[in-house]
């Protein structure tokens, strides 16, 4: 054993974690070693299933069953005393004393990690009093102080509010305050910003980084986003399939990666910071638009002070063979806009003009049930969640074939052949058509969803966050597939996303939405490099740049929104 140097607070040696499953043992973590040093940030990067979260959780002995630490040591050094966490029982007093007191943890989902029935203040006070002997009054003062440190405005007032009165970013701030309540030496942040908007993400990362530096904590940040890593990491460890493939200083990982997987991960990320190569020029003149949206609005709730304008006076055109991106943060109304066009949500006012293959114009908002069905054959939707969008009780053949069956287009052998053809088209092996969706990975499931959308020979595909749930390497594969399909099948895409890099890669033109309004619409390259509107500028500058030598997010532009009327 190498004696840990002075500033090493935690050293993990040959850690292995196994999951005993129904059919086999999964080695979720295999012989992983790393060190956390005082005042330093180690980023654990990897795609889903790489074992990065399990590793982080094992440091607190909170690995979910049937996972078990089967080997290795986790040495925690506090004031010269070394404790092996791996040897402690998860329920022991010693372990409880470490949780929160020595090692603080921030979860991914600020929505589900806070209690909905207690005030934010009382939850933080509980954490404080668990770790110290402060009386009620002193604990409250400390709680207010913590809220101030995490930059919550008017902490005295906000402390007595409930979770639902906090926005996502504020909840994550409250979670950070709670993690800091025990004055930990080590902070573990497990995907702390994945559920947040890009501008909120920038603020939270900025805050975590400043707190870590000012308190001299060691930080372990778990993320899948190479952009985030470049912005905050000192050292990087790359995980894949439970193994640590490479670790080193951030600059070295980004500019001199050794392991092919690291290079591949970087390449997929960097690829998405540019526009797709070999794209046909945007056709914005000449042919008539296939879809013209005019003054489309949707108001939820009655026309009173509580009415919410989810989509407010949106107008745009979609031309044949064009990829139009719709970007915006959560709550900007971009998803509702897609649903209004398909009329799964009924618009309050405005019109959607669709020009079909013969050039006949129809106003979609006035269609009856039967004509709407015909419209839905031409305009198809690809969903965000590859797991929820496929019926778990149907085989892949039934899923892809269902639109053909209900529209009476194919049956029997012809159906089977068409399904096989569609599967080949999206890069799946037709032999797998009798399997159930759960046998496929996220990326393969999204391909199944795309095959289903293509089954009816559509002209327009509305892709609603179609790549958001996928890992970065899979994401670019799916985008390339869609680009290829567009060329081969003469499709137009309405691509709804919160991810600016994806939109820049995929789209010809981009519309930026903010609070239900389209604030800016224009050429993708122009929007991403020289945005005109202040809101777009703040949005673009908040996107993390996957280059540690050019930390864009840290000197981003902030957008102070006018309060909504």
């Amino acid at each position, binding site marked *: 054993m190498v004696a840990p140097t002075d500033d090493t607070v935690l050293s993990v040696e040959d850690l292995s974690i196994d999951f*005993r499953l*129904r*059919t*086999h*043992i*999964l*080695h*979720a973590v*295999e012989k992983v070693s790393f060190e956390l040093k005082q005042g330093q940030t180690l980023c654990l990067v990897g795609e889903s*299933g790489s074992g990065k979260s399990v590793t982080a959780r094992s440091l607190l002995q909170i690995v979910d069953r049937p996972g078990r630490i089967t080997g290795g040591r986790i040495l925690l050094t506090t004031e010269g005393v070394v404790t092996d966490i791996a040897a402690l029982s998860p329920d022991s007093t010693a372990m409880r004393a470490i949780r929160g007191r020595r090692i603080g943890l921030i979860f991914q989902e600020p929505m589900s990690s806070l209690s909905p029935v207690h005030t934010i203040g009382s939850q933080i006070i509980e954490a404080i009093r668990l770790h110290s002997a402060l009386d009620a009054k002193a604990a409250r003062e400390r709680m207010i102080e913590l809220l101030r440190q995490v930059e919550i405005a008017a902490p005295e007032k906000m402390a007595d509010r409930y979770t639902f009165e906090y926005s996502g970013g504020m909840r994550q701030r409250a979670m950070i305050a709670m993690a800091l309540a025990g004055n930990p030496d080590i902070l573990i942040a497990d995907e702390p910003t994945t559920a947040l908007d890009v501008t909120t993400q920038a603020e939270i990362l900025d805050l975590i980084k400043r707190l870590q530096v000012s308190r001299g904590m060691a930080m372990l940040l778990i993320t899948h986003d190479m952009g985030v890593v470049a912005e905050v990491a000192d050292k990087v460890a790359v995980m*894949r*399939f*439970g*193994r*640590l493939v490479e670790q080193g200083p951030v600059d070295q990982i980004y500019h*001199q*990666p*050794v*392991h*092919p*997987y690291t*290079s591949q991960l970087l390449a997929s990320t960097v690829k998405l910071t540019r526009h797709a190569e070999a794209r046909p020029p945007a056709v914005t003149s000449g042919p008539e638009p296939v879809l013209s949206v005019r003054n489309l609005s949707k108001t939820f709730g009655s026309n009173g002070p509580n009415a919410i304008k989810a989509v407010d006076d949106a107008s745009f055109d979609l031309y044949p063979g064009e990829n139009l991106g719709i970007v915006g943060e959560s709550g900007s109304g971009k998803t509702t806009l897609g649903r209004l066009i*398909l009329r*799964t949500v009924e618009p309050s006012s405005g019109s959607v003009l669709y020009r079909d293959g013969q050039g006949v114009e129809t106003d979609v908002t006035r269609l009856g049930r039967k004509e709407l*069905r015909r419209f*839905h*054959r031409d305009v*198809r*939707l690809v*969903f*965000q*969640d590859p797991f*929820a*969008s*496929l*019926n*778990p*009780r*149907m085989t892949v053949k039934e899923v892809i074939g*269902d*639109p053909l069956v*209900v*529209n009476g287009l194919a049956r029997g052998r012809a159906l089977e052949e068409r399904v096989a053809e569609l599967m080949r088209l999206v890069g799946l092996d037709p032999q797998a058509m009798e*399997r*159930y969706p*759960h*046998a496929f990975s996220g990326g393969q499931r999204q391909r199944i*969803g795309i095959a*289903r959308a293509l089954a*009816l020979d559509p002209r327009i595909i509305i892709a609603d966050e179609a790549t958001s749930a996928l890992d970065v390497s899979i994401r670019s594969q799916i985008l390339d597939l869609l680009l290829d399909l567009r060329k081969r099948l003469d499709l137009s895409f309405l691509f709804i996303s919160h991810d600016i890099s994806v939109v820049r890669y995929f789209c010809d033109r981009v519309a930026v939405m903010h609070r239900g309004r389209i604030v800016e619409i224009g050429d993708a390259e122009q929007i991403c490099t020289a945005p005109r509107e202040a809101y777009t500028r703040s949005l673009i500058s908040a996107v993390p740049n996957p280059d540690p030598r050019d930390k864009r997010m840290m000197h981003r532009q902030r957008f102070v929104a006018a309060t909504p009327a």
Partner: protein
Amino acid sequence: MTLQENLGPRIDRPLVVADGPSISPLKQGGTVSTATIGPWRLIGRKLLRQKVAMIAGAVILILYLVGLFAEFLAPFLPTTSKPQYTYAPPQAISLFVTNPDGSSDFRPHVKGYRVEIDKVALRRTFVVDETKVVPIGFFVKGPAYHLFGLIPMDRHLIGPLNPADPMYLLGTDRLGRDVFSRLVHGTRVSMSIGLVGVGVSLVLGVVFGAISGFYGGWVDMLIQRVIEVVSAMPTIPLWLGLAAAIPLTWSPLTVYFVITIIVSLLGWTSLAREVRGRFLALRSEDFVTAARLDGSSETRLIFRHILPSLTSHILAVVTLAVPTMIVAETSLSFLGIGLKPPVVSWGVLLQDAQNIRTVATAPWLLIWPSLAVVVAVLSFNFFGDGLRDAADPYDN
């Protein structure tokens, strides 16, 4: 030029490009099978792992087999009464007979009865007479019957070699009828009334629950209010009233079906609520929206896309509803408003044990039918619980 040449060696661990997660077999040297299976086989596997549920399932299966082969399993007809053996106590089966010379032979038998007159109470009581030997055997000839109502037979699984001899393993009742035979025949009626009743509630519950949950709005409102009214009805007075309306001239079998329907008309509400809740949750799922955009009709959405996702849940609820039906039948018959003699059910059997004198002198009249009810109800509950836990094959 490869990456390594490009960047020079800076390798502290071997370069291994794994092409999948690292896994190993459960046992040393075993094989790893990651072949995927369909949802129903997953449910089956999860169910098989629950020991209590499997035992309960076996008990249920045995009870239904008993009901199916009642005539063959019962040594006597349920209606044959022998006035000379009223309130005869249960006999135990012995395997060996001791001869007068001290040697013993293998001869399965039960001991006969001896009448004793209680001089104070002036009452005849039966005691087991150790000296009388009634030889018994398997597959003996006994009263003739039609198996499944079709095949004429006169063999019984177990019985006295001489059909006239007494063999009352669980004693006899007031009229000298064999309690064991009656219990076996009662199993058929009591267990099947549960099934038929649940079948009716299943249809009502699924249809109303599905409509209510899928359409929402005023339809949902209306159905939910109806459910509330139905569940607010005091059941026993309602049963009393409805049962009183059944004409006395109807055959016992007709009465049986009417009672079933009465019981199930009140029993569908909980299933309807369960189904409604599931539909509310599932109708906004992405895969349902996808099917709607594919052009599926509403009927197809309900029956092809949503219902299959909750069949296993419905099965669990139904299994848990069967015991309610059994208990309802038992209590109705016990109160004298359900099934009536000559139909034999567990509830009818319990009717004989209504007064304390009977219970004091012939406790077997109370013990065995109650035990049957308790075993059946517990088995259904354990099995239903197990099924409900296994119902969602993808939660792990």
